[in-house]
């Protein structure tokens, strides 16, 4: 194992985030807080509570998930797309490192960044509404698993993308709608029955539901199912990444 390589990749990816502090941390946090103010305060004052939880608090897990998913994907996809775009990828390809080490370095750094963003959002939200976390360990586990899975997913997008448009395509056209329709701002049980069934095909529903359960013990689907879904997603991403490196997909001609 080339631990030095993992270290430097991780370190320099984190350094890049640090140097663009405003862009990496401040902007996702600010936009989430804006959602929070608009939805939580403006709309929340008209909705009493959902499943016995005040609306302001109810949307916190969903908003965190929204930020985590978009940030994990954006960070990881850009992290690997950039060297491909500038050509500096030659150095990574010619280095004595395996695909596992590349993935740990890049995905680890991206996941760390979104983990930090998640925590900042949580603390900021705590300033607006009283938050109680029923199952802190579960909450952290969901948080970490989500960061890792979606950073992996972003890494795949970064490898696959051959131009900037493609880099933005999936996050914009697939992920954001899924998150918005995944129960970030409402409980699935508030929908008409037909839509409830449709919603169950949205994988993000399981993520948000599980995550919300770890806060308030209210869930749209069972926690076990939520956990299983996220693990399945993680495995699929791992298999795709493994296949990509095995075949040299879009990296080695």
């Amino acid at each position: 194992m080339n631990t030095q390589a993992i270290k430097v990749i991780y370190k320099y990816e984190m350094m890049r985030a640090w140097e663009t502090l405003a862009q990496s941390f401040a902007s996702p946090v600010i936009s989430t807080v804006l959602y929070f103010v608009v939805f939580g305060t403006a709309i929340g004052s008209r909705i009493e509570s959902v499943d016995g939880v005040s609306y302001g608090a109810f949307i916190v897990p969903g908003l965190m998930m929204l930020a985590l998913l978009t940030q994990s994907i954006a960070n990881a996809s850009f992290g690997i797309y950039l060297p491909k775009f500038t050509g500096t990828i030659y150095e990574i390809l010619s280095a004595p490192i395996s695909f596992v080490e590349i993935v740990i370095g890049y995905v680890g750094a991206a996941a760390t960044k979104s983990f930090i963003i998640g925590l900042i959002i949580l603390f900021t939200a705590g300033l607006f509404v009283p938050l109680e976390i029923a199952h802190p360990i579960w909450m952290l586990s969901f948080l970490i698993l989500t960061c890792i899975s979606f950073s992996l997913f972003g890494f795949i997008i970064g490898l696959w993308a051959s131009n900037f448009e493609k880099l933005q395509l999936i996050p914009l056209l697939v992920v954001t709608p899924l998150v918005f329709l995944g129960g970030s701002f409402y409980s699935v049980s508030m929908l008409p029955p037909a839509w409830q069934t449709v919603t169950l095909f949205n994988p993000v529903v399981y993520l948000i539901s599980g995550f919300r359960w770890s806060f308030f013990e209210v869930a749209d689907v069972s926690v076990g199912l939520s956990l299983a879904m996220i693990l399945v997603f993680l495995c699929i991403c791992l298999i795709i990444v493994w296949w990509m490196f095995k075949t040299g997909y879009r990296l080695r001609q």
Partner: protein
Amino acid sequence: MQPIVSISNLSKTYASGFQALKEVNLDIQPGEILALLGPNGAGKTTLISIICGIVNASSGSVTVGGHNIDTDYRITRSMIGLVPQELTLGAFEKVWNTVSFSRGLFGKKPNSDYLQKLLKDLSLWDKKDSMLMALSGGMKRRVLIGKALAHEPMILFLDEPTAGVDVELRKDMWALVQRLRESGVTIILTTHYIEEAEAIADRVGVINKGELLLVDDKQALMHKLGKRQLVIELEAELTNLPEALAPWSLESSEEGAQLIYTYDPHKTNTGINGLLQAVSEAGLLIKDVNTTKTSLEEIFVSLVNTK
């Protein structure tokens, strides 16, 4: 001596169907400087990229230090440093950081003394905290060399190190290559410049359309193919050549004002004495005498054209 790099029957066909390398065989000896000479699109970069692990070979095999580049890539790649042809560098990084990154990437523990010496050798020390985008092209090229040497490789690949580099920097680069060789590094460089191969290489390989046409000692190559010409300029133009000069099979040019004699300088009897004597005996007045060496360029052109 066991070759440090051994390439056998290496072929590469790109996904587009284009065959960039055809059954290349080449052994590179430890400590030598090998120049790969070839026109645009000959396959030089492809060959280097395969050895370094950037491009996958279609068939054939390569060993570095006796280890296979596919199965023992960790060993082989840590022996190699690569300076790419293009100036591929990030923009928002600092010189010191990018060089430290390279060292770590190749599995070496940080060593600021070594990196400091390296940057000083490359006259980059005063730029260590500069952003890469703020450097000139020549400086960027040196940063790339610094990155390639950051992990103390035994083998250095320089893909057109002096493209777009001014005369002074080119001389610096050659001096650096010599110093590296003295410290035991094996160097493989590609170039379009014949003078470059002539000036610094021990051996020269000529590559064209994916085929390695020949590899030979630079001296032997010059010896084998390096003919010389003696150009005799006459005071008066000759209408026809005197009978007595026939044995030298001279060519005449400039409407008879010049006689050209092609000879092999490595023979004991070059025939020059006899020729000059015969010229004066024929009553021709000599204005000037001049010899020219066939450069690698001409050798190269003749090789490429005969294939």
